[in-house]
């Protein structure tokens, strides 16, 4: 069984652990550098990205994650998407730069604008997983404003959009969702990530 790390400094790491188990992987709750050697891929969960970033710096894990992302697949949801992005605005903050997207924090509004919606996925996503709409939970979600582009990396592939904006994308080994697939019973997004390992 694949061992998948879940960064467990803050946020809904427990929900990701349960979703990974449901999708057929063994979760490892990563709090220390040494655990990175034991895992095949890493999930950065939803939570509060400023807090997570501060704790990453405090634990001295920031550079380790940037380096891990060059070798192994990573999957970020919501705050995780912000940490994995190339550019972050509103306000701007440091990020790992593992996927070539520019995100705006809280781009869909504050807590009161949070919502659960059904979204269409691309044929590519459905062929690799299963057909059907995807339930997407947006909580103070970031919005992907643009794909920044890169010459030396695989191109960014959009797997789902909401109201015209990308909400689920992949680039090479990495997967990013601005919503929370870990909070629904539909395990297709986690299954897709496991296939990348």
């Amino acid at each position: 069984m694949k061992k998948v790390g879940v960064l467990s400094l803050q946020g809904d790491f427990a929900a990701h652990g349960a979703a990974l188990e449901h999708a057929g992987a063994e979760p490892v709750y990563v709090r220390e550098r040494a655990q990175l050697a034991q895992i095949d891929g890493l999930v950065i969960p939803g939570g509060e990205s400023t807090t997570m970033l501060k704790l990453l710096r405090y634990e001295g894990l920031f550079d380790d994650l940037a380096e891990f992302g060059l070798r192994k697949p990573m999957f970020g949801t919501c705050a995780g998407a912000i940490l994995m992005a190339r550019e972050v605005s509103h306000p701007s903050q440091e990020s790992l730069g593992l996927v070539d997207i520019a995100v705006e924090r809280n781009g869909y509004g504050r807590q009161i604008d949070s919502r659960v919606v059904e979204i269409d996925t691309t044929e590519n996503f459905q062929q690799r997983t299963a057909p059907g709409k995807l339930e997407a939970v947006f909580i103070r979600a970031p919005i992907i404003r643009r794909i920044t582009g890169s010459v030396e990396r695989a191109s960014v592939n959009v797997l789902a959009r909401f109201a015209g904006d990308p909400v689920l994308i992949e680039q090479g080994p990495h997967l990013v969702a601005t919503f929370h697939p870990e909070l629904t019973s539909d395990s297709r997004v986690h299954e897709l990530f496991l296939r990348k390992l």
Partner: protein
Amino acid sequence: MANIGIIEAIMAKVSIPVMAKARIGHFMEARILEALGVDYIDESEVLTPADEEHHIAKTAFRVPFVCGARNLGEALRRIAEGATMIRTKGEAGSGNIVEAVRHIRTIVKEMRHLTILGKEELLHEAKNLQAPLELVEWVAEHGRLPVPNFSAGGIATPADAALVMQLGAEAVFVGSGIFKSSDPAARANAIVKAAKNYNNPEKLLEASRELGDAMPGLDISKMAESELMQTRGW
């Protein structure tokens, strides 16, 4: 409810979620805070209650609420009204952890008790707890609250935060413990680190170093019941 200008200034300044307090039962203060766009409302006993019988009917709101509780019955009544987060009341502003410990211990013990009861006993227990049967049954099946369970009211040190996390809190609220200390910024930082590292004594030691004086604690046993905030709400 605090001065709106101050809440707005805070919302404009920080990128993290902002929670504001409404008085117990004051649903129009809550409507104003919702219109302002705060991220959460704390229907809080720290402010004098606006209604001596009723809490806010929170299911009617889009903004999520947190409410205080001293025991499982109180927690489940608040959840039935629509609270999406619960925090132990402790004794706010006391700098003394004893009440927060009492309340989290009580809630955890009462939940554990439910998990060993049979169906007919749960009916009786719902009556004792003055809480809806379906919530009592949910807790009996899962052994936890159906919403996040926080600890608040008297947390003043990194060790306090780690203690209540050990006792079953999923997160901690700290107010005067930070703002009435001699070193608010450093203390806030240290308490966040302690909540994250509550299982790691070396990290807790590191977080506890280089802190000044905690806020002076009050001896709650010497306070009159009428002075206590935790007795507000029902």
